[in-house]
Every structure is written in C-alpha cells, then in structure tokens.
C-alpha cells in the first residue's frame, strides 16, 4: 500500500531522516516508535508532502508520489492527524468536519447556497458518530476537552476518506484510562473502515497490544522492524530505550 525507499532528509548537514525504507501492507495497522528526536514526525511530514525529501522515493499503491505537494498527496488518499491537536478555534466540531469533507470534494469555492444547509450533513454526522463526537458536535472547538480535540483532529483526517491514516501520538497528553479509550476507538475505526494505519506512539503497552508491525527509529534510521514479539526481544531496541536514547 505504502512504500518508502531510502528516504532521506537533512537539515544543515544533520540527517533527520536517514535512508529509511518501510512498507505498509493494505489494511494493516502499524506503529513507529523511537526515542525523542528519532525523526518520527519528520517522517510523517515527508510522507504527507509537508517536507520535500532530499533523496529516496515514496510510493502509494505503485504510484510515485515523491515530492508531490501536500494538497495533492491528501487528495490521493493520505491523511494525517497531528501531535498537538491542530484545529479551528472559533468553529464548531460540526462545521470543522464539514469543511474537511468539502475540502476533499473541492467544494470550498462554492459561493452559492448556504454552508449551513449543505447536502453533506449526513456524511458529516457519520464522521462525528464514528469519532465519538456526535454529542459535542455543536461545541466550539476551543471549548472541547483535550481528548476530544485530539479526536477532532483525527475526525478531520477521517473526513477525507483516506486510504492511509497517519496518527502522530494520538494519546499524547492523556491519562492512562483515556489512552486506552482512544486506542480502542482507533481499533474500532480500523476494523470498520479497513484503512491502513501508521501511528507514532510512546506507550509501549499500547503499541505491543494493537500494532501488527513495528518500526523502530533512532536518529533518523530504522533500527529494527518486525512483529511485536520480535521487537520486544530485540537487543538493539532494548539498548536504545534503556541506553542513551
């Protein structure tokens, strides 16, 4: 589904991403882990087109999408959610979701008719329900709880009906109970929508619980990759986490 081949990006001589190759199978759920500064978010930025790679290639279902613009890549089917909820403070949950849907459909140039009685209301309600935000759909984004804000960020990505969903630390800033709730919701989503998911996460219990395949990054390089049980026993990985990383 998604293939990265020898992707590299450096900033002023330092490699944030160093020769990274990975492959995500269709409908799989995968995790990227690694100590802080390992280059995980940079990797996401490269995949989604927010950053231009120095070298290497990115393939989406056999199509070469390397160095396409962020908007093009989004329309081709890759969507992401951010580490810090990246939403629209003065708009309501419902309005935000509608905007995301319209954006995907190139409908934002429409100066005719009112935004409020748009035909996408059914779709927007579906996304709201799917993300567990139906009850708060009319609340203004800045007044949402932290957890709901993170969910809204994901909902916006879902509204794009992506083939691949990238989640950057979906449980960041949450307490232990909320974290498991978030992860079980993500699991539900994954089962219902059959998307391919790649998420960045720090909580190892969660990672080992739901990821089918794990990539470990350190200093921009892929330190190890494989099934959870293999990663758990990988000496390099253990050293990286307990050692200086």
């Amino acid at each position, binding site marked *: 589904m998604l293939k990265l081949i020898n992707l590299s990006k450096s900033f002023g001589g330092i490699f944030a991403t160093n020769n990274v190759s990975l492959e995500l199978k269709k409908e799989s759920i995968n995790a990227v882990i690694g100590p802080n500064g390992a280059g995980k978010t940079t990797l996401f930025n490269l995949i989604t087109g*927010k950053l231009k790679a120095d070298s290497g290639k990115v393939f989406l279902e056999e199509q070469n999408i390397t160095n396409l*613009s962020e908007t093009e890549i989004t329309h081709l089917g890759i969507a992401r959610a951010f580490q810090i909820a990246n939403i629209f403070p003065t708009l309501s949950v419902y309005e935000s979701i509608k905007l995301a849907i319209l954006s995907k459909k190139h409908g934002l140039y429409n100066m005719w008719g009112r*935004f409020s009685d748009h035909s996408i209301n059914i779709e927007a309600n579906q996304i709201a329900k799917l993300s567990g935000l139906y009850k708060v759909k009319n609340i203004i984004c800045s007044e949402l709880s932290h957890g709901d804000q993170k969910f809204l960020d994901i909902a916006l990505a879902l509204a794009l009906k992506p083939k691949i969903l990238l989640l950057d630390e979906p449980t960041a800033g949450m307490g232990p109970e909320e974290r498991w709730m978030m992860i079980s919701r993500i699991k539900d989503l994954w089962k219902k929508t059959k998307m391919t998911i790649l998420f960045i996460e720090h909580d190892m219990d969660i990672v080992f619980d739901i990821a089918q395949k794990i990539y470990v990054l350190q200093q921009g390089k892929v330190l190890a990759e494989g099934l959870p049980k293999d990663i758990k026993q990988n000496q390099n990985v253990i050293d990286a986490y307990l050692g200086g990383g």
Partner: protein
Amino acid sequence: MITFFKQDNFFRDATVAFLSWLLLIGIYYLIPDPGIHDIIQKVFILGLFALSLNILIGYLGLIAFGHATFFATGAYTLGLFLQSNFITDYNLGALSIPIAIILSILISGILSAIIGAICIRLKDIYFSFLTLAFQMFIYSIILALVNITGGDQGLMGGFPKPPFLGLDLGQPFDFYIFTLFVSIFVILMLRQLIESSFGYGLRMIRDNPERPSALGFNIKNHKLIAFILAGSIAGLAGSLQALLDVGAYPEWAFWSKSAEPLFMILLGGMHTFLGPLMGALIFEILNDFVTANTRYYGLVLGLVILGFVLGLRQGLLDWLLMQFNRK
C-alpha cells in the same frame, strides 16, 4: 462569529434588506433634513467600504493597510470615464453611469488581482506593509500624473450625470434611493458570500492557516479571490463616493483614508457581519457631531478609539449581540 438569528437563509436576509431599503426611503420623507440624508448616504458608502475590508480582516485574518487604493481607483475610474469623450463619441447616453460603475468595479478588481497576487505571498506585518507601500506608490502616481488626474487638486471640472432607468442622479431623492439600493444589494450579496462554503473556507484560513493544506485545500487561490472581491467592492464604494461629490480626490488614496474603515471595524465590531456598518454609523455621527462643536476632532476621535481599545475591547455591535446572546 456572533449571530443574531440562529437559523439563517437567503430569503430572510433578502426580505430584511428590502424592508430596510423601504424604511430608509420612508425616513427620507419623515425627516426632510438634507443633513440627515447626507449622513445616511455616507454611512452606507463608507459602510460598504468597511464591510469590504472586513472580508480580509474579520473573516480571513489578513490585516490590509492599503485598502483605500481600490476605493480611490474606483472613484477616479468613474470620474475619468464620465469626463472623457467616450460618452459623446459612442453616444452612450443613459448607459453612461451604469457602464462607469461597472468599469470602476472592473478596474479596481484587476488592480486588486495584481496587487493581491504579490501581497498574499507574505505574512503578517509584511503583508500589511506591502499593501500600504502599494497604496502610497499609487498615491504618488495619482499626484504625478497631473494632466490626467488633476494632481493634488483632484479631478476638477465635474462631470455629467446622464439620467438612466428613470433616475436623475442630479436629484437628491433619486441619488438617495439609488445609492442605498446599490449599497444594500451588494451588502446582501456579501452576506450570501460570507455564509456560503466559500465564506467558511475563509474562516478556516483565519483560524489555522497551516491546517487546510493537510486537508487538501489550497489556500492561496482562496485568499486571492477574497482579496479581489474586497478590492472590487471597495472600488464600487469609491465610485459611489465620486458620484456623490462629483469629483475624485487624491486624499482618498492617502494612507489615512485606509485608517477610516479600520476605525469603523473597531468601533462596530469585526465579529458580526454588520459590525462595520454600525461602525460607519458611529464614525459619521461622531464626525458630524464633533466637527459641529469643536475643531479638535482628532482629540475626540482618538479618545473614543482609546476607550474602545482599552475599555470595551470589542466593537459595539459585537458587544450588543454578545449581551443579547447571553439571555
């Protein structure tokens, strides 16, 4: 955004607009004071100007310092066209004024497309300064081309106002109902624009300019279209002002003219649709009242603005509607 009605639709807005127009015509007869009529006309012309700027400031989040560029362009275009030989050469007759107005909108629109395309590539204060730089550059051009524009005297010699559609703009009443009709109509159209998907796209950009591209939305074109619309409407306002004053003056292209709609947006509020119009009302009343009683207009205006900035911290209409919504 703060709203008055919970549900909104075009027909309700159109009805309100039409009834307002009739009401204002009624006021013309109920209060036969030409000074009052003058204020009402000015409020709507300047209100239109301020509303057009609020597309950029209130809804898009772009602080444009140089918006009067388009107001002046519209005014001079209308004046120059009506003074030119086109009308007699082509025997335009009754079409003269409508064509002049359309031309004003068009030329301002084209200019705003050019200036906008260059300016929106910059952010924050740099964007603001560049719009100002363009404005003062054009102001200098207007002053320099003395033979065409009349230089610092402005467009002199007046121009004809051939009657059309049964209206003779030389008659105060005809001018009154015409100006109000055009202004209210455009305001209605603006309302539709703001409440459409396009308008919400603007709000999206204002709230979080980085996010839209991750949603597949290219904000550059959106910003440019908004800029062009704002500039065109400002040009229309300028052409109406030129018709009112039967002339066009370089002061309308000076940077202080760009400050006026900013004051109106502050006084009336940038978070309600009609805020800038109320701001124009406050501004005009202040203007009229103060200049009648003292020569120190700047002092009073400065104190009022200070009061709003430090005290109320929002425009009057914004504040009123927030109180209303609390109940």
